[in-house]
């Protein structure tokens, strides 16, 4: 069987689920290895945060953040439309 060439291409989407803080991330790839969806690919630059190739496939489970040894290096953010509204107890008319 002949061998097809592989190419890595980012499949963009309207949301940005994963946000890395490059000053805290050490590029250990724990987040990448634990992700069941395989949303990220390793960064060719050693020590740098993984690259998010398939953001639209993210299931928003948070396992990557739970696995990260450096708090704050990675955060998970739901699309804006998915942020539920809350209001303070005293004045129910005000939005939260």
């Amino acid at each position, binding site marked *: 069987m002949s061998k097809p060439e*592989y190419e890595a291409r980012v499949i963009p989407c309207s949301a940005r689920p994963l946000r890395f803080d490059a000053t805290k991330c050490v590029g250990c790839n724990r987040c990448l290895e634990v*992700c*069941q969806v395989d949303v990220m690919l390793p960064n060719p630059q050693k020590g740098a945060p993984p690259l998010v190739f398939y953001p639209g496939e993210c299931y928003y489970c948070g396992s990557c953040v*739970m696995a990260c040894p450096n708090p704050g290096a990675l955060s998970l953010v739901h699309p804006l439309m998915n942020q539920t509204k809350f209001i303070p107890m005293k004045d129910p008319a005000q939005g939260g």
Partner: protein
Amino acid sequence: MKWPYENRAGETRRMECDVLVLGGGLAGCYTAIAAARKGQRVILVEKGATERSGAAGSGFDHWESACTNPCSRVTPEEVAQAFIDDKDGYFNGISHYIECREGYDRLLDMETFGGKIRDTQDDFAGAAFRDEKNKFLFAYDYTNRFTLRVWGSTFKPALARECRRLGVTVLDRTEATALLLDRTGAAPCGAGAAAMNTRTGEFLILRAKATVLCMSRPARVWLFHSDLVGLSEFRPTQCIGSGHAMGYRAGLEFVMMEKSVRGEFSAAGRSFPPYSAGNNHNTWYAATMVDARGVDIPYVDRDGRVLKTVDERYRPAPGQKFFLKGGTIDEAAYEVRGPETMDAAALLAQGYQLPFYADLSRMPEMERKVIWGLMVGEEGKTKIPVLKALTDRGFDPEKHRLQSYGSGWQSASFLEQERQLFGAPGGLMNDWDLKTNIDGIYAAGDQLFTGDCCGHAAATGYYAGRKAALRAASLEALPACDEEEAAAEQARLLAPLFRSEGMDWRELNAALAKAMQIYCGGVKNDAFLREGLDLLRTYREDYVPQLSCANPHELMRTHEVLDLLDVCELILNACLLRRAGNTALCFARSDSAEVDPPGDRRFLTLKKEGDRMVSGSCPLDYYGDLKSQYEAHNADYLEEVAHEQA
């Protein structure tokens, strides 16, 4: 960018074992552990990474039907029968009885693997839902104590570790794609599976004496969002019913595939992320709800009696032995109906004003802390995306109310044609060995019909692992593997890599979902179902040969849509079989005036033989008396357990 992993397209790896487990979620891990404990050589194939894969990968908050725990006041027979009755008989009596009987044993196993099942830090000392001696925390029915609150986020890593400790060969990032059959005997039998590495494209031929299917159930059938694919459904992106598809192609028998329900979750569309909106169901039971003015919404018992205290929300009604709550319970039958907030229509008629909110501030401290912190926190997809995200945004359960967007825990209003396989849907048919209709092939967890919930996945997984181990031990040699069949599978799998500028998998998934909404929506009729099948045929003939992709990751997604095509075909055929409306199956027809005719109260089964669909039927209670049948089939296990306790 250059693909960062090796290119092994066209290469084949051959491996052999006694018991092959497909899918490494809760069910698959317990299957592997049971078979390994029996001394069998086990391979576990997981498409993602076992450490956090599956519906329970990031956690879960409650373990249902642990009827044999020392605090329980109900029997496995009572609870299993209550579930069966609640579903009007359209329920897997075998697998749910196994759950009621053995689920607690699996919880104790989990503790030895390192999972947390007790309030060891005494965070909830003195709470009404805590047993002080065992340090167990209970949910829902505090009187009868058969559902436990657990620290589910600790479970999957513990299971993955235990599998490796027992010498299970774990193949992560490997998708099973087809069942291999030995057709040399009088009847076909399972011979293993074909698989592909999702990073390298390497093809695997996995030969085994027994195979167990633990790949959960289909999703993205009616609901698909091409932009936010991973939010299309409730279950993980990975779980779209490949197990059903490969089973269908191999001739396994299915039941209840005509059942689907109006959508409940799709955070890419009409609903919010699960458990992130104000509600009082499941994880949030029994939160205090208030209306827009801040007025308490009353809880009532099954007789409409208004409950005065928070504690009463967790107690059976006068004269009621126990009540049911949990994953598959929507509106429970009267006998087991638990406390619930007053019906939304009645509330509005009485002047209550929308929107409603969850207001934990007025609950006793322990109840607030256990909902916001333990339940929301351990429940799947809540620790980071809900608990942390809302806390970071400033939400404080003592100071804020969280908005509710619907009348139930769905927090959404879907259209009738936006459907899901949810709330005890169909799946593989099984006998008392959790064996399918083909010898050597077993199933567990959500891949079984009406499979649902963690206790069920763990208990049936372990049980299937035991039975598969027995089968493997009884065979001297591996069943024969058909090399031609394997080569054809490899060619099928790799084909999209050899095309460029073709169709992206998303385009086909979107077309399938739209077709299912049109031809297999809320109300069925033969003309539409047949049109649907015809359309699928054209997709198969004209568009499947156009699918193309650039690397093994995209190829895995492409395979998923090919599997979905089979799943859609299976569902349409199952719908054609059922001739009249059926309330319990949420099945309506416009071309038949009949609803629930007594003669139709049967399971209708379906399997594929070559290109032919073969249908059958059997009584709803085909499994016989639960207790005596279970005991007749499990003398060995009962002896083992008795021995351990002695």
